[in-house]
Structures are given as C-alpha cells and as structure tokens.
C-alpha cells in the first residue's frame, strides 16, 4: 500500500481495529447494570408505593398479586417499592465505597513505590494490619461507637479492600520501574506526577479494574451482612442486605421477601464481573 492514498489508509485502519462485537453475556450484563442505575436514579418515580406505606389488610401477599407484583411483606409494604429503594441505597454505598477504596489504596501503593524505604514499610505494615483484622469486627466497633449514618457507612466501606489495591499498585509500579518504560520516561525528565498518573496508572489500570469488579460485589455483600446484623442501613430505610436480613424470618412462609433482593444481588454482582472482565480487555490496545 502507498502512503499517498488516504481512502485506502482509512480502510486499512478500520480493518486493523475492528469494533469487536459485544458478547451476549456482556451485553446482558450491561443491560442489567443500566437498569439498576436507572432504578437508582429514578427510584422516586418508579416505585408504586412509599416504602413505609403499610397495608395491614394485605400482609404477606404472594407475588403476582394485582397491585403488588412482587408481593408484600409482614407489614403489608410493597416488596417491589422497597426493592427499588434498596437498589438505590446499595448502589450508592457500593459505588461510593469502591471508588474511595480504589483511590485510597492506589494512592498509598504508588506512594510506597515512589518513596520506598520507610514510607513503603509503613504502607505495607498498614496493609498487613488491615488484612489481618476481620473487617466485619472493625465495622461493628466503629458503627457501635458512632451510630449508623449513610455517610459513615460509605466511608467505612471505603476502607474495605484498600489493602489489595495498595499491594497491587505498589507491586506493579515497582515492576514498571524496573521494566523499562517507566525508567525511560523518567530519563526523559518527567516529573513523578507525570510518570505515575500519565504512564504507570494507565498501564496498571486494567489490573485495578479487575480488582474493583471483585471488591464491588464484596462491598454489597458486606453491607448486606452489616444490615443483616442490624448495624448497617437502619429501618425504615432499606437496602438489599437489610431486606434479606428481615426477610429471613419469613423464609418458610413468604420466601419472596428474601428472594427478590437476593436475586438482585446475585445478578448485579455477576454482571459487574462479566462487564469488568470485558472492559479490561477493551481498554488494552495490545489485546485486540
């Protein structure tokens, strides 16, 4: 081919980077996540009843009852309405906490790789400390002391799993420094800021994204666990875990109260994993 033929060039470029078709599973996952985000944003418009609105004459109605498509709970509250609100609360906690955790952990990891020596030892020590301490127990202590609020819950969950990002980021940044491209950029005269944010971060992002897709479901489950123990989201506010926790009492007589949020948790975490895996490959120009 010749360099003087622009149309030809364009055609060739298109061929080199075909837009890979999105696999069905990933498409379904993306669709589900979009639905969840819509639910979270439009919760106030979507839910047919208020989450605290009780109808004692229609207690424990099974699903598909007209007017209560997912049934009602022990107080006659509409399960669908509460589910929609729960999705909003749980997503806010999970997204917020994952973002805090990733940012905090990656920053500490990069600081450790940049300064080595005492800073590195301190960060590694903190990470070991965090990993050795059962997170649930720490959360229980903090929530018991300070009481449960949405903000505190998000911040607390933000400490969940940061040590993994810190370790990954530190290890990858050190490897990158030894590997060449980082040393080469440094030798060009780049400031550490440019080196870490402009080169090392994009190069290690795929690994961090995969780690985020692992942490995200874990945070949903952790929040569910805390709510289940009564220290997470406080009634009458509701979250997915909170619903599972209270629905447990009626597992044999009215399983839908618990099953509805359980299914949402499962499909959401599965979707996140599938999409995260696919995203990692898409973001890497060398895997095409």
């Amino acid at each position, binding site marked *: 081919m010749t*360099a003087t033929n622009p149309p030809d*060039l364009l055609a060739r*470029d298109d061929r*080199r980077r075909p837009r890979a078709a999105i696999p069905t599973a990933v498409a379904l996952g993306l669709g589900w996540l979009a639905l969840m985000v819509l639910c979270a944003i439009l919760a106030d418009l979507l839910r047919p009843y208020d989450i605290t609105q009780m109808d004692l004459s229609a207690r424990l109605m099974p699903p598909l009852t007209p007017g209560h498509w997912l049934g009602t709970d022990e107080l006659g509250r509409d399960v669908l309405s509460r589910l929609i609100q729960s999705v909003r609360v749980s997503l806010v906690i999970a997204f917020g906490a994952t973002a805090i955790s990733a940012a905090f952990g990656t920053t500490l990891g990069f600081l450790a790789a940049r300064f080595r020596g005492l800073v590195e030892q301190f960060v590694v020590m903190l990470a070991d400390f965090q990993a050795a301490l059962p997170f649930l127990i720490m959360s229980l202590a903090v929530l018991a002391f300070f009481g449960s609020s949405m903000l505190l819950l998000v911040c607390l969950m933000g400490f969940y799993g940061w040590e993994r990002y810190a370790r990954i980021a530190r290890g990858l940044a050190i490897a990158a420094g030894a*590997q*060449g*491209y980082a*040393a*080469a*950029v440094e*030798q*060009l*005269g*780049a*400031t550490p800021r*440019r080196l870490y944010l402009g*080169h090392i971060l*994009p*190069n290690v992002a795929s690994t961090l994204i995969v780690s985020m897709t692992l942490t995200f479901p874990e945070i949903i489950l952790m929040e569910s666990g805390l709510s289940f123990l009564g220290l997470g989201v406080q009634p009458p506010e509701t979250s997915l875990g909170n619903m599972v926790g209270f629905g447990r009492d009626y597992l044999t007589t009215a399983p839908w109260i618990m099953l509805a949020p359980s299914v949402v948790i499962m499909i959401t975490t599965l979707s996140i994993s599938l999409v995260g895996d696919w995203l990692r490959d898409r973001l*890497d*120009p*060398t895997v095409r």
Partner: protein
Amino acid sequence: MSALIEAEDLVRVYATRQGLFGRAVPVRAVDGVSLRVARGETLGIVGESGSGKSTLGRMLLGVDPAQGGVVRFDGAPLPDKGTPAWRALRARLQMVYQDPLAALDRRLPIARQIREPLDIHARGDDAARRARVAELMQSVGLRADQAGRYPHELSGGQRQRVVIARALACAPELLVCDEPVSALDVSIQAQVVNLLRGLRGENGLAMVFISHDLKVVRNLCDRVAVMYLGRIVEEGPVERLFAAPRHPYTRALISSVPDPGQPLKGRIILQGEPPNPAKRPPGCAFYPRCPQASGICRAELPQMRATGQGCRAACHHLDGADPVPQAA
C-alpha cells in the same frame, strides 16, 4: 576540542548475595573508569557481557549514581537523580535502549511518545510541537500515517526509530546508545546503524555507543574504549586501535571478528571464562586468560599508559618483545 562529558575514576559496586544466608559480596561492576567525550565525537565502548558497559553508560547519564569518582557534563558535576536540575538536564542528555519495546509505553500511540519530551521540557506551543514531531518522524524514516500506531504494531526497527526520535526531540548534546541494535534482526541493524551514522556530529551531537559488535563500532565511532571486568584496558582512535591493538585482550577481541569470504587467520582463542567479578583476581584481571601473563601481572594492577598516536592501554607488557601484529 573541549570535553562535553568527562568521567573521572568512576566506581559502582553492587552487592550480590549468594545463597539464602550468604553474606553480601560486593561486585565492582565499574572500577575506576575515566573517560572523556568531546562535542560531536562518537565514543564506542566494547567488551563482553558483564564487563560493566551498560552500567557505565547509565552512570554517564546520572541514572545510576556513582559510588566513587565524578561525572562532569559541560564542566559541572551531574546533579543528583530526581532533582529538578537533573530532570532539566535530560533535555541535553538522552539514551537509546537495547529493547525498544520495553522502553516504550505500549498504551500510547507513538506520536504522543515522541512528543513527550517536548511537553516535559515545555518546548514551543502546540503547533510547534506537532511540527517538531512530524519533522522527527520524517528524519528517522517513519511515515506520517504511522503516527497513531501503538508500539506493538510496529516492527523492531521501527520501534527503535521511535525511541531514537523521542531521544532526539529536545536536540540533546549527548546520546548514550546502550546496545541499540543487538536486539534487532541483522537486516534491520544496518538501517538503524545508518540512521545513527547520519546523526553523528549533527549539530555537535556527541554519542557514546555501547556495543559488543566490533564491526558496528568500527563503522560508527571516532574513538573506542575496550572494557574488561569493569575497567578500561585500552582506548584510542578507532582505526588506529583496530589496526594495531596493544592490549592482549583487545587483540583477542579483534582477531575474533570474521571477514566475509576469508577463513579466520591467526585467531587468538582465549581460554576459560571471564572471572567472576565478585572474585576479581589481584593484579591484572586478565592474567588468568592472558597468553603473555607473567609474575608481575599477578601482583600488580597495570595502569593506563600512552602507547602513541592517541592510544592508551593498561598492560605490563606493552614494551615487551611480543611483536604487534600490523595486519588489520
């Protein structure tokens, strides 16, 4: 000619640990090396693997700190690594790497990477930087339509051109090339060598060319320094040194270069391996393999002495009876 870069008595010691509980053994990778490179001059550094060539190259750039001795660039000692002064100096001192794929960020298109030094050192405005990138790409022989490619989409030779273009972006005064062609196919080596040859002396660009390929060094360099186990054993103008090597190690090296179509005549075959740098023999490091070794070699470290016509060598037997082969 004034010296652009001058190294005095450089020492670099690595600690290696043998075994799980072994004590750290110091290895003198570079041991008392002095050299100078003038503006516009190309100095070749040759030697076998492990002779400290690459470490020396990085020390000249200030990437590896010297544990002894000093490197002066343009008369002033190199600033410490990582300081703003060190970073600013990168516009004048650049490096070409052995493995171009490893030296490039595989997530950025090559034009962005060539442009990076211009961004770092704030050269010109956006339009000027674009123009400079286009000019650089053309001068190293990359097509304009390759600007958006990623490193893994290019051939080895093209990648090395990207590395060279990036190194040249700020018009440096010294380019250290660390085995720039040894990772490339022989057919591509020539292109890169010709490219470097074209750059030689352009705008007073000085080069330190580290290689174990004697033919390339002879083709490209003005002067050559031969390293053995962390020390320079012989140094001089390239034609003179290749025509009349004085140090026995240089002779063995040069006699090992094959000539196409001719059987190797009078080849000096060295016995054994280079000694473990952690257990450096006392005296001349070369004596266990040297055909001329005598008692003094074992006891005393030979110093560099002038051998005439700009050459210097470190050997006790320079005035010995052994005739110097004149045939090249």
